[in-house]
């Protein structure tokens, strides 16, 4: 039964699952755009998007083009980035509990936002963009601090994770301090920012977020190196890879991509942790498949979560960060209990 064709059958199965996920995206996208306070049927949605010249309802047109479509696309980009970065980090640091936030990026971003909101202090950016610019800069500073500390201990997986957690606590404490001295309205704005929300998405922000997706492409190129790392440091080296370099590049690129996204959306948790696990469950641990799977699943999960966030308590919209946790935790626990195989060492 096991002949050379076997691997082809397996690969065809994996590719089929990936194609299925790709096809799910437009489906979820059109559903997401159609539901809301004002319901627009999916057919009308498609008509308005692909044939805007047709004489249709101008209100529906405005809702779709100005509000729902950019927001849905933002969900896709943010989800894809968070999940791909999570997958790359879990592989590079050989730890299933790692997510983009373990390396300090989210608390750095939150601290940057807090500085801008509470003290109005910013290094770069003007007007409405100071929160965004500050969040981005501090997200990356957090990652650099973590990497510098880790460098002192030889850039091992453990040292990067521990340094990341230390950085996270440092910035969290700083945020608490800022919250303590903040005015009530500032506090509200900050807490809201830190929940993670896609409501501010617009076309300009979308173009600013797009580079994060482009950064994911070089990450995908590390799939074989991440596979090799599964066999341990020494075998990875003997296979011609440089584990230290793999870690450094994957951590830096992931942090950069995630920083680009969360400086606009706030830290949306759980996608970067859960999507890689679901992907591994669906297409196996080979990173050539599971990273692409993570990318697609991250998009789908975040878009679904955001759609639920918009409609579940309508007309009130929940921040998506709340929904990802409520949606992600049961899914995660289910996988944990149901999947027999230990996906990690």
């Amino acid at each position, binding site marked *: 039964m096991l002949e050379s064709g076997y691997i082809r059958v397996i690969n065809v199965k994996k590719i089929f699952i990936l194609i299925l996920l790709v096809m799910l995206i437009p489906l979820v996208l059109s559903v997401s755009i159609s539901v809301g306070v004002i319901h627009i049927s999916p057919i009308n949605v498609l008509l308005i998007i692909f044939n805007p010249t047709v004489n249709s309802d101008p209100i529906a047109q405005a809702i779709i083009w100005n509000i729902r479509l950019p927001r849905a696309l933002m969900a896709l980009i943010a989800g894809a980035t968070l999940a791909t970065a999570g997958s790359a980090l879990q592989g590079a640091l050989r730890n299933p509990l790692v997510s983009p936030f373990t390396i300090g990026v989210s608390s750095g971003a939150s601290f940057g936002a807090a500085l801008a909101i509470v003290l109005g202090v910013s290094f770069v950016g003007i007007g409405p963009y100071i929160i965004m610019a500050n969040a981005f800069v501090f997200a990356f500073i957090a990652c650099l601090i973590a990497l510098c500390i880790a460098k002192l201990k030889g850039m091992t997986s453990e040292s990067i994770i521990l340094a990341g957690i230390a950085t996270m606590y440092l910035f969290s404490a700083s945020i608490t301090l800022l919250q303590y001295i903040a005015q009530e309205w500032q506090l509200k704005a900050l807490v809201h920012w830190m929940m993670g929300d896609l409501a501010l998405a617009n076309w300009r922000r979308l173009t600013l977020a797009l580079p994060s997706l482009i950064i994911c492409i070089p990450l995908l190129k590390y799939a074989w190196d991440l596979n*090799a790392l599964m066999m341990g440091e020494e075998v990875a080296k003997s*296979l011609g890879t440089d584990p230290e370099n793999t870690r450094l590049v994957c951590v830096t690129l992931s942090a950069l991509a995630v920083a680009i996204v969360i400086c606009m959306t706030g830290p949306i948790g759980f996608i970067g942790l859960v999507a890689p696990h679901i992907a591994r469950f669906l297409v196996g641990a080979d990173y050539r498949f599971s990273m692409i799977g993570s990318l697609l699943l991250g998009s789908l999960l975040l878009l679904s979560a955001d759609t639920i966030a918009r409609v579940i308590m309508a007309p009130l919209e929940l921040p998506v960060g709340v929904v990802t946790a409520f949606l992600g935790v049961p899914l995660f626990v289910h996988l944990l209990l149901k999947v027999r195989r230990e996906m990690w060492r």
Partner: protein
Amino acid sequence: MEVKILVKGVSVTYGSIKALSGVSVTLEEGQLASLVGPNGAGKTTLLKCISNILKPKVGTVLLDSTEISKISSKELAKKLGYVPQVQPTHIPLTVFEVVALGRRPHVTWRLSKHDLEVIWKVLKMVGVEHLADRYFDELSGGERQKVFIARALAQEPEVLLLDEPTNNLDLKHQLEILTLIRRLVKFHNLTVLMAMHDINLACRFSDIIIMLKDGKIFAIGEPSHVLTSENIKRVYGVEVAVINNPHLFIVPLRVSS
């Protein structure tokens, strides 16, 4: 015979501990050599130096008369396979996928038809093709070791370095693995260097024995010349009886005082 590996005056220190001091070894093409010596004698360190995982500050290692530090890591991986002693056991991959990792130096993204053929060839060579679709963590220790060797063979190396390949294995698996290695040397002209704890097995299967003590080469040569009771007493601190009928056989008697 051509010289395949030349180790010239390699010294390695871990902090203040001298792991290797001035080690020089020559391995000829198609030779099966065993490294023996007590724990901490420097066997693993020497294997790591030859595989360029460890870069010695003093001394050089030459492969086909080229310094290995000057060969790109990818090119080196096509010539040299290394199976370390300790490897993770919970790898969430199938046997096929583990062996496919050996193609890493040869591929960019896709596994070509040729790659798949090589993988199946080594799976059959090692005798684990029936396990191809099994998950790696379901295997027994002996099967795992075979898969690890298959993974290294999938690199299509000219030199194979093995760190205690028969460690923790039952008698049958020990013999199977060493017979396999012997066959690879004979029919595929592979050059093999392996660290061994079992000196009886080492002398049964090896062309030459390299005896290490305290990071230095104590003796080197044919098994019957190196594995004498006098040498073993001085290196291991153990009194042995050496029986040579018809195979060389070493019976440990007591710790020498």
